[in-house]
């Protein structure tokens, strides 16, 4: 007898992977906790997290949008302004340090620095430069918008049942003295790169783990019952400043993030890891879920990931209760039509006729 004798098939590569159609590979995740449709789910992190939020919402789960778009903003423009992308308008949060930083600013005594970047007379927020296409009109506006997002973070964290965070990168750019981390390298989208003030930091395992623990502590201080689900983005680095080949840099970065997620999932009963990273990047899948640029994940890949997510939840906890049909939100065009109709009811039409008649009667 050996310890391997009684293990299930899923423990062995040949029957669980090599001899299967990749799309039939299953049981990759044994979730620690049930995620019910009524649970309020917050999503944040690297760009892959946005797919998770959308998929949850599409399946009738309660994805929490703590900073919703104004209803009159055209649907096509919401994504451009990062409404509905994550649960709040931080844009991508690539690193655990950045997550802890946002939570510190939202809940701590330290206000965020008033650093802002200028470009062509517009103002960009260095911590979320993509949320306002073309930049803010004034510094005051940029700071007011950031304050609204911090408020949304507070709402999201305190109201959520589940916090889904996708770890994206280890490489980062920070202020040399303060250690404040920027969302992207200064000077790439806006601002100016100054070697004296800006430094490259490729965060190692200890730093990434430590800052994720800081983030978890902050989350639980303000919501002790919050459950956390970690994923690792399967999207490779666009560029590396590490001096190594971008392929190697990607492997390093993702390995660190994966190890941190694994460590936390092992040590913390309130933290789980969902293997979307393995589903997209694993060798059995032969890169089939990547677009031609070998970076972007195809919708089919996202679909397969989310199918696995729900299948594994159902396998462990049973099928979820049938979703109550959620009323489809009124579209902007529908609302406009309704308002027009209300304004154009019979009585109003009569008033219009009377007005014209009274004014133009010969």
């Amino acid at each position, binding site marked *: 007898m050996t310890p391997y004798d009684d293990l299930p098939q899923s423990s062995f590569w040949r029957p669980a992977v090599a001899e299967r159609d990749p799309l039939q590979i299953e049981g990759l995740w044994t979730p620690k906790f049930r995620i019910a449709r009524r649970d309020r789910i917050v999503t944040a992190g690297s760009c892959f997290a946005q797919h998770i939020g959308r998929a949850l919402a599409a399946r009738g789960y309660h994805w929490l949008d703590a900073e919703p778009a*104004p209803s*009159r*903003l*055209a649907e096509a*423009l919401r994504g451009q*302004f990062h409404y509905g992308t994550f649960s709040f308008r931080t844009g991508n949060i690539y690193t655990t340090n950045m997550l802890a930083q946002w939570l510190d600013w939202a809940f701590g005594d330290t206000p965020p620095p008033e650093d802002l970047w200028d470009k062509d007379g517009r103002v960009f927020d260095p911590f979320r430069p993509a949320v*306002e*296409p*073309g*930049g*803010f*009109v004034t510094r005051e*506006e940029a700071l*007011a*918008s950031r*304050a*609204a997002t911090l*408020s*949304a973070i507070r709402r999201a964290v305190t109201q959520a049942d589940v916090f889904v965070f996708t770890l994206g990168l280890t490489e980062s750019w920070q202020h040399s003295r303060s250690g404040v981390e920027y969302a992207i390298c200064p000077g790439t989208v806006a601002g100016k790169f100054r070697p004296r003030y800006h430094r490259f930091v490729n965060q190692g395992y200890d730093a990434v783990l430590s800052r994720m623990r800081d983030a978890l502590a902050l989350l639980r201080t303000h919501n002790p019952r919050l459950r956390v689900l970690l994923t690792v983005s399967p999207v490779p680095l666009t560029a590396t400043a590490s001096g190594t080949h971008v392929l190697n840099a990607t492997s390093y970065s993702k390995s660190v993030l994966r190890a941190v997620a694994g460590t936390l999932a092992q040590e913390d009963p309130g933290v789980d890891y969902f293997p979307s990273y393995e589903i997209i990047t694993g060798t059995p899948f032969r890169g089939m879920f990547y677009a031609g640029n070998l970076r972007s994940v195809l919708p089919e890949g996202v679909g397969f990931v989310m199918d696995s997510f729900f299948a594994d939840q159902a396998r462990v906890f049973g099928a979820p209760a049938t979703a109550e049909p959620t009323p489809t939100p009124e579209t*902007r*065009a529908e609302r*406009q039509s309704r*308002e*027009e109709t209300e*304004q*154009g009811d019979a*009585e*109003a*039409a009569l*008033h*219009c*006729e009377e*007005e*014209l008649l*009274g*004014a*133009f009667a010969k």
Partner: protein
Amino acid sequence: MPLPSDPIRLCIFGDSHIACLRHAVKGRALTDPPVDLEFWGTVGHRFHKISLQDGALVPDDETTADRFAAVNLHGRRRLRPEEFEAILFMGARTRLNMLFAEFLHRARHPDLFLSTGVRREMIRAHLTDQRPYGFARAFAAQGAAQILFAPVSFPTEGISTEYLDSFPDAVHGTAADRAAIWALVREVMAEDGITLLPQADRSVTLGCFTAAAYATRHAATRGDSTHKNGAYGRLVLRGLMQALAPLRKTDEQAA
């Protein structure tokens, strides 16, 4: 550009909101600058029966054409921009009320902050969705006449409460708040070659309502929060005359 002695040929096009302007000009010559004025309009619900054909606005059926012709001195059955130096779109089914209400309400709540960029895009999208605004844009693109646009006025205070459920704090909007929103509307319209005539702020009360003094007759008893009186029309006219002044050649230019 007309000579100093020539009146500016102006058409006021619109829905029932043209009535207040008609009241304002009744028995009054428009001399500063001199204007040769025509109205061309009908009730708003007939606006879906007009369309652009070869650059002109043309009623789709005889009944609608008759309705438009009825308010026009010359019985005009279609509107060609090249026959005027200026065309004012008055009301023309284009309401900005709910946008104002939302922006003014949100301005009172830091958590609901909206950037200039977002507000601008909301205004742009809303205007683009309005068919009559599309007519104005098409006219402006022709370059034949100056196109001005006065959106539907805010509802009269005390009659309508249409915003208050969704945007209760809009009532606390200030003149400065409104001016900032109008500036965005002006910018968006200017990109389309259209000159905005904003609602005169002296007529506004409670954030984005029109003061009762400008209501049409018996508005309260009829429950008509939409239409306004001649006094309101005179305010619009004042803005209109100021906007038209540059169209008139000076004596030096004429010489």
